[in-house]
């Protein structure tokens, strides 16, 4: 997000009127957006109305850089396919990647609860080291704080990432046009449902793993194949694909039409969602991204994705239309359709 703060004529207009913070304010859906846009943005960024992106692209003394930060409070710490340390690296790396930057370095902050076992901590630091190596980023520094037993749940991690903006691509929701295609890098919902099942609160078992991974190699493949045609990218974490695309629809003022039958979803995720009354489009992902690409570049982008390692299940899942402006509409093969809104409330707290 590029924001010019003019402190001289700053007139913050605080629209956030809710008396207290609820779990939903951290769920990445509508309530989160109200908090950020209604309280944080007016106080921190003044009157700027730039859409809030995944990472800020700054120019400092002539050098361009991308910066972002993310905190991780997932419960349980370790789950099939990953752990909090791995998420903390990949989550921030992916925010940089989908903003159109090559992730370069991370700063890691740990908040530890007194009583945390050293072997648990060591395993997570190892996970951070290994994931950072896999993602090609170095750990540039960090900070550690310890709080009393009972004041934090084992450990929380915050990572701040620095990246180098990629040449030949500019991510801006306002550049999205009717006719553009929506690409998805692979099956959705694996992470959220894995965490839900890993908590063991439900008597449902499923053979599922979190999809946590760096998406930079896939993003890079798309940018190389279709750079000038890439208009927008986002990693659909909390709130899922539905929330990310609703944000896009609002930011560009156009409609997003999804073809339900082209959206890849693993059977175990579909089954769990059917049982629990959840929509896979609202479930978090940690290793996928969405891209909106100009129609003439769409086939090249899809081919590049599908040929890259880990991109075999990528699909074109929809397109941009004039209508329904500001909304996401899912259509089915038999001609039915439904609006898909941002996530309301928080069915699954603390998934990342």
């Amino acid at each position, binding site marked *: 997000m590029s924001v010019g703060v003019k402190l001289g004529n700053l007139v913050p207009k605080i629209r956030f009127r809710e008396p207290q913070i609820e779990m939903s304010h951290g769920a990445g859906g509508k309530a989160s957006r109200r908090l950020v846009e209604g309280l944080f943005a007016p106080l921190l960024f003044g009157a700027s109305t730039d859409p809030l992106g995944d990472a800020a692209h700054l120019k400092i003394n002539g050098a361009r850089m991308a910066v972002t930060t993310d905190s991780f409070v997932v419960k349980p710490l370790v789950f099939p396919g990953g752990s909090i340390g791995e998420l903390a690296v990949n989550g921030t790396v992916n925010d940089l990647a989908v903003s159109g930057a090559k992730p370069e370095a991370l700063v890691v902050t740990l908040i530890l609860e007194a009583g945390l076992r050293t072997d648990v901590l060591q395993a997570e630091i190892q996970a951070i080291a290994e994931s950072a190596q896999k993602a090609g980023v170095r750990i540039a520094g960090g900070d550690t704080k310890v709080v009393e037993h009972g004041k934090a749940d084992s450990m929380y991690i915050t990572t701040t990432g620095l990246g180098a903006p990629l040449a030949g691509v500019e991510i801006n929701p306002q550049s999205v046009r009717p006719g553009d295609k929506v690409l998805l890098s692979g099956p959705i919902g694996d992470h959220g449902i894995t965490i839900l099942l890993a908590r063991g609160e439900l008597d449902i078992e499923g053979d599922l793993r979190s999809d946590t991974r760096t998406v930079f190699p896939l993003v890079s493949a798309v940018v190389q194949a279709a750079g000038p045609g890439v208009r927008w990218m986002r990693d659909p974490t909390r709130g899922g694909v539905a929330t990310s695309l609703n944000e896009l629809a609002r930011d560009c003022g156009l409609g997003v039409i999804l073809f339900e039958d082209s959206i890849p979803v693993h059977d175990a995720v579909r089954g769990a969602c059917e049982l629990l009354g959840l929509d896979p489009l609202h479930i978090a992902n940690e290793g996928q991204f969405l891209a909106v690409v100009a129609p003439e570049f769409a086939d090249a982008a899809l081919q590049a994705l599908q040929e890259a390692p880990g991109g075999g299940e990528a699909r074109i899942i929809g397109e941009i239309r004039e209508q329904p402006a500001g909304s996401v509409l899912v259509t089915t093969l038999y001609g039915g359709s*439904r609006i898909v809104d941002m996530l309301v409330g928080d069915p699954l707290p603390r998934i990342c």
Partner: protein
Amino acid sequence: MKYVDEFRNPELITKAAEEIRRLADPNRHYRLMEVCGGHTHAIYRFGLKDVLPENIELIHGPGCPVCVLPMGRIDDALAVAAQPDVIFAAFGDMMRVPGTNGSPLEHKARGMDVRIVYSPTDAIKLAKLNPQKHVMFFAIGFETTAPSTALTLQRAKLEGIHNFSVFCNHVTIIPAIRAILDSPDMRLDGFIGPGHVSTVIGCRPYEWIAKNERKPIVVCGFEPLDLLQSIVMLLTQLKKGESKVENQYKRVVPWEGNRAALKAMAQTFQLRPYFEWRGLGFISQSALSIRDEFAEWDTEQRFHVPGIRVTDPKAAQCGEVLKGVLKPAQCKLFGRECTPENPVGALMVSSEGSCAAYYNYEHRKVNLLTSISV
């Protein structure tokens, strides 16, 4: 997925839709009520209105248990939960339902011990894990969920779990349908009968609707093809001038119901002389209370329950929407003061509530050009 994919098969759905067009008399307007909130949700989720001819109007019925519960019952439960060392346990869809001073979730943010459970046996687990606290399970639902509450009460008694009780809000479907039919502003041509409820009660209890009220009723499943097939069956009856009870959901619903479940209910519950329903008022013998043999596990017998009665916010027209007299969007608050995020009425909270379903899946479609071709 078995039993799901074949009932979402686009080819079969298109065929059923064609059959409906063929059967529907273009000079007639059909008003069919889907009793069950699960059907309302499925109709919007799968966009079925888009494939039905315009002269088939689906009226949303009273079969959403969260929606028909008057606000006073939530206030009562929250009053009990406000006492020290009480844990409020309920299904997730209760959590955001507004009471007079906020929903259970808002009470949780203020410090109340509120837990989401996925079955009443989870609430028993919770009681065992917290022996120094009392776990109150907020039981809600039609005959669909009542048997599992009954078995849970029996288990609590058998195992001697004394820090557990049930705040019972179970209701029964037949009196609600009767109230709808008795309502003078309702003119219906037939019913899409509840699916899940019928797995327990079977199809026989609907026979009076066919015989005395001369309305066809088809017990129906929850997939798009189920709903369209049931509409085909209703139109076929209407065309022949018949009124019968038919079972479209044979893969799940036995004609006689589930005797073991009915027996467990009869052992544990008795009919309340009357119970208040949102929108429908007091209906006699329409709800269940816990038998005296289980008094120790009955929140209402064990604790002082204030018996709060509150009327819905005046401007909200939940009652009219519940009865099918108004469409969700015709309520004065719909989409303005009342949204899924800041719900004024329960119909905007539950996924089975017609307002939430309409808001989430439909209402912004209205201005949409019909020329979406994919």
